[in-house]
C-alpha cells in the first residue's frame, strides 16, 4: 500500500503491527458484519498517521475486501493517508495528535453509563505524548475510575525529528503514569503472549485505567528500516519492497 501510493509512515506502522494483530484477533469484541453494534468494544487510533497498518488489519479481519486497499491514498478513495471513519471498522478520524485519548475517555464514560461492559482501547504514539491534551486526559481518567479504559503507547523511541530522548524526553515515563494513578504495564510490544496477557486483563479490577507501555522497534521486521528515522517519511522502492516482503515473510 505504502509503496504503491508512494506514501509515508511505514516505520510507525510496523512498530504497532503486533499490537493491532493481538487486539483484533484476541481482544476486541467487534463484529465485521456489524461494525456499529452498540455493545462493541471501541478502538481509537490516536496516531492517525499510522493508518496503512490499521486499514490492512481491518481488511484481514473481514471489515472489507483486501482488494479495496489498492485505492489507498488514490483520488476519490475513502482510504485517506490519516485514518478515516469513512472506512468500516474505524471509530474516529485522527491525524492531529493528542485528540484520541479524550475521545476514548468520552466513550469509556458512555460505556460505563450504559452498563454494557464494553471496553475502550486507545493507541498513542510516543511523540504524541508531548501534547498537553493527552495529559489533561491522563489526569482525568483515574479520577473518574475508568477501569474500562486502556491506553497503549507504541514506544518506539523515535519521533519526527529524532529520538524521543533528544527531542523531548519522556522518562521516567512509567513513573509519570503511576504518579497520575494509572495501572501501568511495561512490556515488549512485539511479544504477542505478553500483549494478550495485559490487554486481556482489561477492565482492571480495582477500577484504575490501564496503560500498556509497549517497547517497540520502529520499522520492526525489516532490517533496513529498523530504528531508522528516515522511514517515518520514505516510501520503499521496488527493490526495497521486495527485500522487505521477503524479510517479514509476506
Amino acid at each position, binding site marked *: 500500500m505504502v509503496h504503491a501510493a508512494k506514501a509515508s509512515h511505514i516505520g510507525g506502522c510496523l512498530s504497532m503491527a503486533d499490537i493491532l494483530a493481538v487486539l483484533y484477533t484476541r481482544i476486541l469484541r467487534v463484529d465485521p458484519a456489524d461494525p456499529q453494534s452498540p455493545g462493541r468494544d471501541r478502538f481509537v487510533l490516536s496516531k492517525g498517521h499510522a493508518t496503512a497498518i490499521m486499514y490492512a488489519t481491518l481488511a484481514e479481519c473481514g471489515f472489507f475486501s483486501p482488494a479495496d486497499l489498492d485505492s489507498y491514498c488514490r483520488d476519490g478513495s475513502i482510504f485517506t493517508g490519516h485514518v478515516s471513519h469513512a472506512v468500516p471498522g474505524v471509530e474516529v478520524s485522527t491525524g492531529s495528535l493528542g485528540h484520541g485519548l479524550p475521545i476514548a475517555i468520552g466513550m*469509556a464514560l458512555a460505556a460505563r453509563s450504559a452498563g454494557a461492559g464494553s471496553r475502550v482501547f486507545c493507541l498513542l504514539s510516543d511523540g504524541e505524548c508531548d501534547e498537553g491534551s493527552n495529559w489533561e486526559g491522563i489526569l482525568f481518567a483515574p479520577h473518574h475510575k475508568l477501569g474500562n479504559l486502556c491506553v497503549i503507547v507504541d514506544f518506539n523511541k523515535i519521533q519526527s525529528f529524532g529520538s524521543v530522548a533528544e527531542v523531548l524526553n519522556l522518562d521516567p515515563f512509567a513513573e509519570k503514569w503511576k504518579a497520575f494513578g494509572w495501572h501501568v504495564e511495561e512490556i515488549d510490544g512485539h511479544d504477542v503472549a505478553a500483549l494478550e496477557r495485559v490487554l486481556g486483563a482489561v477492565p482492571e479490577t480495582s477500577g484504575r485505567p490501564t496503560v500498556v507501555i509497549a517497547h517497540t522497534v520502529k520499522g520492526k521486521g525489516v532490517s533496513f528500516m529498523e530504528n531508522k528515522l528516515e522511514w517515518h517519511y520514505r516510501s520503499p522502492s521496488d527493490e526495497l519492497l521486495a527485500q522487505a516482503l521477503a524479510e517479514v515473510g509476506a
Partner: protein
Amino acid sequence: MRTTFIESLSQAASENPDIWLLCGDLGYSVLEPFAAKFPERYLNVGVAEQNMAGIAAGIALSGKTVFIYSIGNFPTLRCLEQLRNDVCYHGADVKVVAVGAGYAYGSQGYTHHALEDAGIMSMLPGIEVFVPCDPMEVRAATRLIAGSGRPSYLRLSRQGEPNLGSVVTDIRKPRVLREGRDVVILSSGPIASRALDAAGELAGRGRDVGVVSISCLKPLDEATIRDAVRDASLVVTLEEHILRGGLFSLVAGVFAGDAKRAPVTGLGIPEQGGKTSSAGSREALLDAAGLSVPTIVARIEQALVKR
C-alpha cells in the same frame, strides 16, 4: 440568559435521558439545578477545555447529546481544533455553550471578552450558530438544539437581559422587534436593545426604522432577510462582535452578488490589535467602541446622507 438556558436545558433533559452536560469548572451558581437533578449526566471535567471537547465527542459518538459549557473563548477558541475535527467532522451531537458574549464580562478584561467567537464558530463545517438577543430566544434556541442531532453553538450574554419582543415562533427565522421599512437594523444578540433605542430616536426625527433580530447566524435565513429589507434604502447590521466573520460579513455576503441593492453599514466592535483594553462595564465598553445609542444614531444618519 444563563438561568433561562439552564432551566430550558433541564426541561429538555427531563424529557430526553440522553442529554448530558459537561462544564470546564465554570458555571458556579448557574449549573447546580441541572447537576442536582441529573447527577449521572453532569460532569465537571476540570479546567481542561481540549479534554472537555474530546470527551464530549466520545460520549456523543456513543449515542448521546452533549452540552459543553464555559466562558466565551474557553469552550470555543481554546479547543477549536477538537471542535473542528472531533465534533464537526464526525457530525457529533455536541452543543457548545459560551457565556459572556462580547463585552458581557466588562471589567474582567480582554481575555474574557468574546469578540471573534461567533464568526469563528460559523466557519466550522456543519455547525449551527445561535446568538439570541433575549431570554425568549435563549429558551427557543436551547429547545431547538437539544433535539437537532447536530453540532451547535449557543452564544449567551450573562444575566438580567430583558425580553425585547413578542413570542418566538421559529428561532431559525429572523424576528421582527420593530416594524419599519426605510432603514432596517439587523441585529444579533442583546445589543438589539440599543438598536431599538436608536430606532426610537430616529423615528422621533421622522425616520422609518425597523429592527430585526437575527438569532440564527448559521444557517442564515437569506430569504427572510431579503424580505425584511425589500423596501429599505439602508441596511444596518449591529453586533457585539468584530465585523469580520460576524453578522455584517454574513449579511453582506447575501447581497454581494445583487446588481441593485441597498448599502449595508456594519456597526460592531473594532479590532483591538495590540492596544490594551480598559476596565469598564459592558455598557461603558460598548460606548467606547462607538456603539452608544447616540453614536449609533449619528452613524446611521451619516450613512443615510451618503446613500
